[in-house]
C-alpha cells in the first residue's frame, strides 16, 4: 500500500474517534496522526492501559499493537489484569508481551497463527481501527483489576 493511500484509509477510519466518544468511554487519545493511534483506557479503580497501534501499510497489514504503561513506556510484563488476548509471553518479532487477537499484527505473524490470514478480515467493521480499539478496550475491561 502506498503511504499516501494508507493515510487516506487511516484518516477515513479514525474520523469518528471524537472527543465526545472518548469522554464516554474513558479514552485519552495521545495521538491520532497517521500512522499512530495512541490511546489510554481509564476507569475508576482500574489500572490504566495504554495501547499504541502502528498502522503503517493500513490496511494491507493489520496494526501492530504495543502495550504501554500510562506514561507511554512499552510494558515488559503484563499488569495484573490480563484476559485471554493479552499474552505475557514475548513475541518473537517485538520481544514484548503482545495482543494475541485477530486484527493485531502480532497475532497474524505469530508462528501459531500464520495460517489465520488478515486478508479475509480486513474491511470488516470489527477490524476497522476503531473496531480493533474497541475490542481491546472490551478485553481490558474484562480483567479483574
Amino acid at each position, binding site marked *: 500500500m502506498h503511504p499516501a493511500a494508507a493515510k487516506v484509509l487511516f484518516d477515513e477510519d479514525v474520523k469518528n474517534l471524537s472527543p465526545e466518544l472518548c469522554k464516554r468511554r474513558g479514552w485519552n487519545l495521545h495521538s491520532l496522526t497517521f500512522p499512530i493511534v495512541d490511546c489510554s483506557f481509564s476507569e475508576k479503580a482500574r489500572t490504566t492501559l495504554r495501547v499504541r497501534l502502528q498502522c503503517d501499510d493500513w490496511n494491507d497489514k493489520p496494526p501492530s499493537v504495543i502495550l504501554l504503561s500510562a506514561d507511554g513506556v512499552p510494558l515488559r510484563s503484563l499488569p495484573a489484569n490480563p484476559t485471554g*488476548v493479552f499474552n505475557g509471553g514475548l513475541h518473537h518479532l517485538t520481544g514484548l508481551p503482545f495482543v494475541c487477537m485477530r486484527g493485531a499484527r502480532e497475532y497474524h505473524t505469530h508462528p501459531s497463527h500464520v495460517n489465520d490470514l488478515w486478508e479475509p478480515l480486513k474491511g470488516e467493521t470489527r477490524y476497522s481501527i476503531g473496531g480493533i480499539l474497541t475490542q481491546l478496550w472490551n478485553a481490558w475491561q474484562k480483567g479483574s483489576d
Partner: protein
Amino acid sequence: MAEKEVAAGEAERKLDVSISTTAGFYPTEGFDAVPEKQAVQTELDKAKHHLKIKDVNGWIATVISESGKRQIDPARSYAENNLSGQIEIDWGPSEGGGGV
C-alpha cells in the same frame, strides 16, 4: 377510567437514549425519546442504518452504571434492562478471539 389513564401513561412512558459507536453517534446530537417498553434492539437497528454500519456480528451493548460497565440484552426492553432516565448506550465489537 383513572386506572385506564394511568395504564396508558405507563405504556407510553419514554426515555432518552443516545448510542455511541466508533462510526458515530445516534442520534447525531442529543437523545432520542423512546418508549421504555421498546426493545433496545429497535434503536440499535436505527443506529446501524443511520451510521451505515455494515456488520454488527459479535457486537455488545453496554451502559456505564455506578458499579461500572454493564452489558445489556438488546432483545429486552429498557425497563427489563433496569434502565431509566437518560441512557447512554455504547455499542461495539466484543473482545475477539485469539490465544496461543
